[in-house]
């Protein structure tokens, strides 16, 4: 039984097809990896699913319910959390306060929200930074902040946009371990990744995009051998 089922999703900006006829599904408890070169439409896909951009056509079903065109806050309340590629922490608030705001989604009481936020902050290994302002945290720490904040809303599906991108190489193993830990905690995950090794390692399925089109969707080992993926993406990847 798939938790998210996307069919024929399309969006054009002006004459440019940012997403065209994209279909895929994510099963309960799985990790879906999304790959593709810059401008392939990966972040747009997340924006379409979470309601930040209104799709032109197609269908999006989450747990059997049609969520096409719903506003972002509705989508979030239905159980889809997300992080942003361009990080959006609440800069003038502390880490704890950031995560508490997520926790308020299901926990109106301030003390309970605080306790829950602390547990999640501990889960992402930032407990000693809880009273730091978000603007004082490093990029890697802010990514964890965004993950913690999204997790505090108790999502059934979490969309992660380049969680390992742009961070210090040293912190990557920790972030990967964290994604695993979340999967073990029962969260279904879709993650956009540039690091091909990571994606092959953690994903149950992979969706490959290029120029707004789906070029492949399947198990990691099939994707690895898919000629179109190799042409469009793997072949052009620099060692950097």
């Amino acid at each position, binding site marked *: 039984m798939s938790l998210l089922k996307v069919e024929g999703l399309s969006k054009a900006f002006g004459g440019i097809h940012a997403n065209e006829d994209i279909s895929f599904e994510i099963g309960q408890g799985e990790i879906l990896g999304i790959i593709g070169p810059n401008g392939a439409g990966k972040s747009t896909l997340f924006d379409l699913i979470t309601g930040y951009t209104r799709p032109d056509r197609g269908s999006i079903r989450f747990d059997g319910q049609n969520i096409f065109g719903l506003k972002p806050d509705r989508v979030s309340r239905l159980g889809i959390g997300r992080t942003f590629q361009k990080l959006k922490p609440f800069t003038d608030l502390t880490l704890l306060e950031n995560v508490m705001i997520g926790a308020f989604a299901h926990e109106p009481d*301030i003390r309970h929200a605080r306790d829950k936020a602390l547990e999640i902050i501990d889960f992402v290994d930032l*407990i*000693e930074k809880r009273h730091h302002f978000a603007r004082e945290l490093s990029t890697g720490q802010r990514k964890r902040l965004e993950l913690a904040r*999204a997790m505090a*809303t108790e999502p059934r599906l979490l969309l992660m946009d380049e969680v390992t991108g742009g961070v210090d190489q040293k912190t990557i193993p920790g972030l990967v371990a964290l994604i695993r830990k979340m999967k073990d905690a029962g969260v279904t995950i879709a993650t956009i990744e540039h690091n091909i090794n990571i994606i092959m390692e953690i994903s149950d399925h992979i969706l490959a995009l290029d120029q707004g089109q789906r070029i492949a969707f399947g198990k990691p080992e099939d994707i690895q051998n898919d000629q179109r993926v190799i042409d469009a993406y793997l072949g052009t990847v620099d060692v950097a």
Partner: protein
Amino acid sequence: MASMLKQALREPVWHVNGRIAFALVGLTVFLLLFPLLDPGAFYLHLMILIFMYAVMSQSWNVIAGLSGQISLGHGMFFGIGAYTSSVLYLQYGLTPWIGLLLGMLICGVIAVMIGIPMLRLSGHYFAIATLLIGIGCQVVFQRWEFVGAASGLWMPLTEESSWSALQFHHSKAPYYYVFFGFFIVTYLLVWRLGRSKIGFRLRAVRDDAQAAQSLGINVAKYKIIAYAISAIIMAPMGSLFAQYILIVDPDRMFNIEISILVLLMTVLGGIGTIWGPLIGVAILIPISEYSRIYLGGTGGAVDLIFYGLILMLICIFRPAGLISLFPKHVLERERQR
């Protein structure tokens, strides 16, 4: 790690700074006893203005500091509050207390009506709309015969001081306590608001609306809530001030200067903090009243030149306001509101 979590869970949700709490209690007691020291009419008047502007600036602080939306015509809620209670009193003999409550209700409704179209969009639309409506309100009241048009309304004097008519002829002390009561209640409520779920969500909306949405927060709804609360706080000050000076006219009650002052005082003291507005008021009201005495109230606009200049300087050099000059360890606790 686990021990760190346990320790964190044992921390109180809010730090209480004993010294600050003690100082606040002391200040409250002093303010309660102040009229008994027989300070004279001028000082009572000064304190009344400070209480009034402290509430009005806090009102602006709720919409601007807490939810991040700039209202440039906030004085209109003051005017509408003033006119509501005064007109009801004059035309229907209704006690100003009821008029005051109705004024709050009307202002809340108006805020929601303005907020629904304007607060869905980026802050510039809202700022421009409030500027337009603020000036438009004055134009309407200047020409509205039912409420006395440009010459306004004079409240007839009651024979004796009366709590139900809210008129006190022999002393300013009763007015002092009324304004003081509203001041205390407003600050307690806003303090509580800042520590509630709504307060947290408003700050989220202010810091990053998109991120707030991703956490299930209906951004427009929360901005509208903040605007309505803000309007409801402002309205009774108009009603009370009308009873205090016993005149309502468009040039006084819808004066653009009111909107400018509440903005300036809050930004000067420290926007988004509970004590910022009070600090701004405590500095500017005495300066403005003394300069009125020594320079004469000839409307040479000298005070406005000064206000405009301070506003620009604060924006350039201290956008966090004068409160940011306090030592950091004091702010660490204050910051959480």
